[in-house]
C-alpha cells in the first residue's frame, strides 16, 4: 500500500487542500514540520479517520467541520447540508483507490451562541472508487458501507494501524497493544494467518476433512462383500441349473430318438397295425355284444319269471292256454244260464267279523252298529240267494284278460329275442372279422398298439422334459441371470464407491501430509520471523541508541519484545522514555521491513507476496537527543517503502541534513493569520 495524496474539504483546520505524498524508490519520505498545535497530529489522525471511520480517532465530541467556514455561513444557509471530507488516493496491489470519508452536517442555528451544525448521521460515510492501475480511465468499482470497510480491512487491517501510524509522543505500542494482540498483529503482518487458516482447513475433522469423509460410503465394502457372496451362490446355483438343463436336453434327445425309432417301426408295420386295431375294435364290439346279450337275456328271464307286480310270461302262457283248453269260460256261462245259486254260509266267526268291521264280506257297509238285532236284519238282505253272480262274472273277466296280457308279455319277449338275435348276428360278424385279422396277422408277432403306447409314453416323457427345459431356461436360469445382472450392477456401483473411497482415503492421507508440511513450514517461518525480527530490532535499536548493553528477545509465541541487559551494565534495569521510543521505532520499522521483504525473511514462502506498508510517524523524535535523531533519519527511510513523518520545527532542523537525501516532499505546516486554519506550504 502506498498513499499518493490526501485531500481535505472543510475538514478541521485544513479547509480545502491537497497534500501530495512521496512514494518513489529512494525518495520515499514526506516530511511535514511545524510548531506545536498547527495540526501535525490532526494530519496523521485524518489519515486514520479516512481509512477507519469507525475508529473514533477524533472522539465522539470532536467537531470535524472547519470553523472558519462555519463562521462564514450566512443565515440563508440555515437548513442546508454541508460536509467535512478527507479523500486519500492510494495504490495497493493491482488497484488504484480513491478512499473518501465524510461527515455530513445540517446548518441549524446562528443565534447568540454562534453558528451550529448538527450531524445528519451519527457515523461518517465512507465510499471507495476502485480502478485497475492498468486501466485508470476505466469504469470504477464503487464500494460503500460494509464493502468499503471490508476492502480497507483487506488492504491494511485496522488492528495493525498502531504499527504504521505511530504516535511517537505517546509511545502507543506500549500503551495499547497487549502481548496477545501483538502476537496476533505480527502474525497478520507476516501473513501467518493465511497459514493458520490453511492448517485449520487441513486439520483432521476440519471442514475439508469432513467434506472428504462425507463423500465416502462407509458401507460399500461390507455390501460389496455380501453381494459377492450372494453372486457366488447364484453362480453355483446357475451352474447346477445349467447342468440339469444339459442333462434334461440329453435325456429328451434320447427319448426323441427312441420315439422316432418306434414311430419308424409303426410306419413300417402300418398295415399290420391297422389289422391289429381292427381286431381290437372287433374284440371290444364282441365283448360289448356279449354283455348286451347277457343283459337282454336277464331281462327276458325276468319277464319269463314275473314277480310280485307282474305275472311272468311262462305263467301267462300257461294261464291263457288253460283258459283255452279247460273251456272254463263256457263253463262259467253255463253256470250263469242254469241259475246256479250260491248260499252264503255265515259262520259265527264270519258274523263276528262282519259285526266288528261293519262291512259285509261282499264289501257293503252294514250300518247301525251296536244294535245286534237290526244288524242281523240288515245282514239278511246280503245273504239272500243268487248274490255270488258278481264273483263268477269277475272270475270270467279275469280269465278273459289273460290272453291280451299274455300277448303283451309275448311282445316284450319278442323284443328281447330280436335284440339277442341281432347281437348274435353281430357277434358272428365280429368273429369273422377277427378271424380275417388273425389270418392277415399270422406271420406278425409284434404288437403295434404296444408300440403306439410306447410312443405315447415317450411323448409324455418328452413333453415333461420340454417343460423342464422351458422352466430351466426361461425361468430358473433366466431369473438367476436377471438377479446376477442386478447384483453385478450393484457390485460395479460399490466397486466405484470403493474406488472413490480409496481415492478419498488417499486424498485424506495427502491432506494430512500437506497439513503436516504446512505446520512444519509455519513453524520454520515463525522461527525465521522471530529470528530475523529479533536480529533487526537489535540492530536498529543499537544503531539508534548506540547502546549495546541492552538486547531484545522476541517471544516465539507472542512476539513480545523483552529487554535483556548485560551484566553490570546498568544500575536500574528500566528503559528510559527515549529508549522505549527507540525500541518501538526499531520494532515498528523492523516489522515494516520484514513485511516488505517477507519472501526473503520466510525463505520458503514461495507463494507469499511481499507487502509494502507506509510508515506514518507522528513526532517520533520528541524524546530523542540529536544523535538519536540523526541516526533515526538515516535508518528509517531504508526500512520503509514510504515514510510520512511529522516533526517539530526543532527536530526538523536537526534531521533535515540527514533525511534530506530521501525526501521527495516537504511541507511546512503553519497557521494562517487571523484564522484557525493551517496550510501545508511546500518547501
Amino acid at each position: 500500500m502506498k498513499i499518493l495524496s490526501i485531500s481535505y474539504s472543510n475538514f478541521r483546520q485544513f479547509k480545502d487542500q491537497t497534500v501530495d505524498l512521496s512514494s518513489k524508490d529512494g525518495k520515499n519520505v514526506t516530511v511535514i514540520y511545524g510548531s506545536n498545535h498547527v495540526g501535525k497530529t490532526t494530519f496523521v489522525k485524518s489519515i486514520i479517520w479516512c481509512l477507519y471511520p469507525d475508529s473514533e480517532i477524533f472522539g465522539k465530541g470532536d467537531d470535524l467541520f472547519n470553523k472558519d467556514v462555519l463562521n462564514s455561513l450566512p443565515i440563508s444557509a440555515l437548513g442546508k447540508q454541508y460536509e467535512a471530507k478527507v479523500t486519500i488516493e492510494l495504490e495497493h496491489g493491482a488497484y488504484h483507490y480513491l478512499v473518501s470519508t465524510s461527515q455530513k452536517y445540517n446548518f441549524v442555528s446562528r443565534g447568540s451562541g454562534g453558528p451550529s451544525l448538527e450531524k445528519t448521521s451519527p457515523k461518517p460515510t465512507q465510499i471507495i472508487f476502485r480502478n485497475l492501475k492498468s486501466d485508470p480511465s476505466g469504469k470504477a468499482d464503487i464500494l460503500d458501507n460494509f464493502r468499503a470497510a471490508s476492502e480497507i480491512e483487506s488492504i491494511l487491517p485496522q488492528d495493525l494501524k498502531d504499527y504504521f501510524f505511530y504516535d511517537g509522543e505517546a509511545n502507543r505500542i506500549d500503551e495499547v497493544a497487549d502481548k496477545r494482540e501483538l502476537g496476533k498483529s505480527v502474525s497478520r503482518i507476516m501473513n501467518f494467518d493465511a497459514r493458520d487458516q490453511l492448517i485449520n482447513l487441513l486439520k483432521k475433522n476440519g471442514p475439508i476433512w469432513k467434506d472428504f469423509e462425507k463423500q465416502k460410503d462407509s458401507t460399500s465394502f461390507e455390501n460389496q462383500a455380501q453381494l459377492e457372496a450372494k453372486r457366488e451362490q447364484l453362480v453355483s446355483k446357475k451352474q447346477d441349473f445349467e447342468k440339469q438343463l444339459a442333462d434334461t436336453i440329453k435325456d429328451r434327445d434320447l427319448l426323441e430318438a427312441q420315439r422316432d425309432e418306434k414311430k419308424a417301426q409303426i410306419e413300417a408295420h402300418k398295415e399290420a397295425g391297422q389289422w391289429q386295431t381292427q381286431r381290437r375294435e372287433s374284440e371290444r364290439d364282441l365283448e360289448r355284444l356279449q354283455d348286451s346279450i347277457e343283459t337282454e337275456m336277464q331281462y327276458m328271464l325276468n319277464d319269463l319269471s314275473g314277480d310280485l307286480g307282474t305275472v311272468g310270461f311262462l305263467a301267462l302262457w300257461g294261464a291263457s292256454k288253460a283258459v283255452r283248453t279247460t273251456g272254463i269260460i263256457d263253463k262259467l256261462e253255463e253256470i250263469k244260464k242254469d241259475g246256479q245259486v250260491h248260499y252264503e254260509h255265515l259262520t259265527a266267526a264270519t258274523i263276528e267279523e262282519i259285526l266288528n268291521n261293519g262291512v259285509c264280506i261282499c264289501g257293503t257297509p252294514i250300518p247301525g252298529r251296536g244294535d245286534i238285532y237290526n244288524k242281523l236284519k240288515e245282514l239278511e238282505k246280503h245273504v239272500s240267494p243268487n248274490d255270488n253272480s258278481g264273483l263268477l262274472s269277475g272270475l270270467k273277466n279275469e280269465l278273459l284278460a289273460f290272453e291280451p296280457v299274455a300277448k303283451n308279455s309275448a311282445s316284450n319277449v319278442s323284443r328281447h329275442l330280436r335284440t339277442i338275435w341281432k347281437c348274435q348276428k353281430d357277434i358272428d360278424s365280429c368273429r369273422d372279422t377277427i378271424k380275417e385279422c388273425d389270418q392277415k396277422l399270422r406271420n406278425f408277432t409284434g404288437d403295434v398298439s404296444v408300440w403306439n403306447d410306447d410312443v405315447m409314453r415317450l411323448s409324455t416323457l418328452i413333453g415333461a422334459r420340454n417343460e423342464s427345459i422351458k422352466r430351466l431356461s426361461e425361468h430358473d436360469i433366466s431369473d438367476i441371470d436377471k438377479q446376477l445382472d442386478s447384483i453385478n450392477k450393484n457390485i460395479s456401483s460399490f466397486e466405484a464407491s470403493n474406488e472413490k473411497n480409496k481415492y478419498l482415503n488417499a486424498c485424506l492421507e495427502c491432506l494430512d501430509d500437506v497439513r503436516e508440511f504446512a505446520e512444519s513450514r509455519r513453524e520454520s517461518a515463525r522461527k525465521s520471523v522471530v529470528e530475523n525480527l529479533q536480529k533487526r530490532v537489535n540492530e536498529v535499536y543499537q544503531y539508534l541508541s548506540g547502546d549495546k548493553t541492552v538486547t531484545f528477545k522476541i517471544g516465539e509465541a507472542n512476539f513480545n519484545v523483552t529487554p535483556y541487559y548485560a551484566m553490570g551494565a546498568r544500575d536500574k534495569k528500566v528503559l528510559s522514555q527515549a529508549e522505549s521510543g527507540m525500541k518501538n521505532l526499531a520494532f515498528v520499522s523492523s516489522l515494516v521491513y520484514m513485511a516488505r521483504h517477507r519472501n526473503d525473511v520466510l525463505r520458503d514462502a514461495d507463494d507469499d507476496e511481499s507487502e509494502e506498508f507506509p510508515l506514518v510517524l507522528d513526532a517520533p523524535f520528541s524524546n530523542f537527543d540529536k544523535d538519536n535523531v540523526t541516526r533515526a533519519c538515516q535508518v528509517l527511510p531504508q526500512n520503509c517503502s514510504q515514510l510520512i513523518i511529522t516533526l517539530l520545527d526543532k527536530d526538523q532542523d536537526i534531521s533535515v541534513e540527514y533525511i534530506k537525501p530521501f525526501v521527495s516532499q516537504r511541507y511546512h505546516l503553519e497557521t494562517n493569520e487571523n484564522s484557525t486554519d493551517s496550510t501545508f506550504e511546500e518547501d
Partner: protein
Amino acid sequence: MSIFSKDQKISGKYADIVRKYTSGNVSGQGPEKWNLSDDDGKISQQFLFKAAVDMVYAAGWIGLAEGRRVPLEEVKNVTTKGDVTIFAGQITPRESRFWTLFRCMVLSDDGIGLSIEERVKKISLDPTTKEQGNDDWYYFLTYVYGGLEFIDETFSKVTTYTQLLRFISNLRCEVVGEDD
C-alpha cells in the same frame, strides 16, 4: 282261513325241481341247478324263476293247461324231506292271483266229485276246518306238481342258450302267432 294266506310247503322231488329253476333264496339244498352252455361250450348257471312262489303259480297254470296232474294220494304221500317253504309273506300279496287259479282248477274239474253248486260254494268260501284247508292245498298241488314235472321234463332238454331262445320263441308263437 284262506289257504293262500299262510306258509305252505312243496315237498320231495318237486321241491328239488323248484330249487333247480329258481334263483332266489330257496330253503334247503338241491341236487343241482339248471345250467346252460353258450356257443363256445361255456356253461353257466341259469334260472327260470326269481322266486319259488312265482314258479309254483306258473306251474299251477301249466299243469292245468297241459292237463298234467299228480294223483291226490300221491301228493299226500310225497316225502316231506327237503321241503321248500312258500312263506305267507310271499304268497299273501299274490293271494287274489292264486285264488283265480284255484277257482279255475275247481270249476273246470269235472272229476272232483262235487256238483256245480258245490263247486261254486267251494270257490266262494274259505275252508271251514284245518283238514278242509289241507285238503284244498293238496288238491291245488295236484296241478302244481304236474306242472312242475312238465317244466322239468321240458327244460331238462334245454341245455343251451340257443335251445332256450328257440323254445321261448315257440311259446311266443303259441301266444301271438308266427307273424309277430
